């Protein structure tokens, strides 16, 4: 049986959206897939040595809030300073109480499982980032390199 291939494009840089690429990539690797994630735009935040990912309830009516906060807290209340940090720390606490892995842990598991991690060099230039900000093992390339791998992938996801 030929080894299956999974190609993922990770474009988002918030705590909640950090989960799908790392969960799917680590699981695919465990199932024997040759797996690659191409990180572009805000997705590059997921590769920082020191992660500072946050989650915002703004513009997200689907996000369940603790203690029914979404019912009695007006949307405008969510724009108050410190609100995003508070919601983020509540989300992290919730995740750890439910046995959900941290992003750091899932990312480490991906690297251990030899998931190929590629960062978009154009985005690095665009946002004046430096390779030293990112974890070891990241490769830097562009769209053509993505297609070289994705072109013969079995599954290709844009997240």
């Amino acid at each position, binding site marked *: 049986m030929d080894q299956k291939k999974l190609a993922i494009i990770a474009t988002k840089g918030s705590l909640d959206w950090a989960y799908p690429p790392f969960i799917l990539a*680590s699981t695919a690797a*465990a199932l024997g897939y040759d797996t690659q994630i191409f990180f572009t735009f805000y997705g590059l935040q997921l590769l920082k040595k020191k992660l500072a990912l946050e989650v915002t309830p703004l513009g997200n009516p689907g996000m369940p809030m603790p203690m029914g906060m979404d019912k009695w807290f007006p949307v405008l209340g969510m724009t108050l300073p410190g609100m995003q940090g508070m919601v983020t720390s509540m989300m992290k606490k919730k995740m750890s109480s439910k*046995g959900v*892995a941290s992003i750091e842990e899932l990312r480490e598991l991906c690297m251990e*499982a030899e998931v190929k991690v590629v960062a978009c060099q154009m985005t690095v230039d665009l946002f004046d980032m430096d390779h030293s900000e990112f974890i070891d093992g990241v490769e830097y390339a562009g769209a053509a390199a993505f297609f070289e791998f994705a072109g013969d992938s079995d599954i290709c996801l844009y997240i």
Partner: protein
Amino acid sequence: MADFDQELDASGLNCPLPILRAKKTLSGMDAGQILHIIATDPGSVKDFDAFSKQTGNELLESKEEGGKFHFLIKKA
């Protein structure tokens, strides 16, 4: 529960950690050896079935007992 060679307690862990831990444990075992996994994640029932089908490691047993899920997987 039949005999097994190694045990992995994945109680309290959520998707995809039980699968990832099982994969890691299996990679340190010999072909034909049996791994007993204990999990509390209800999603792990379908997941270990799918893991077994896709990796060729045979799922010998899958059952719920005392509020926990037990799996026996034979390394291919």
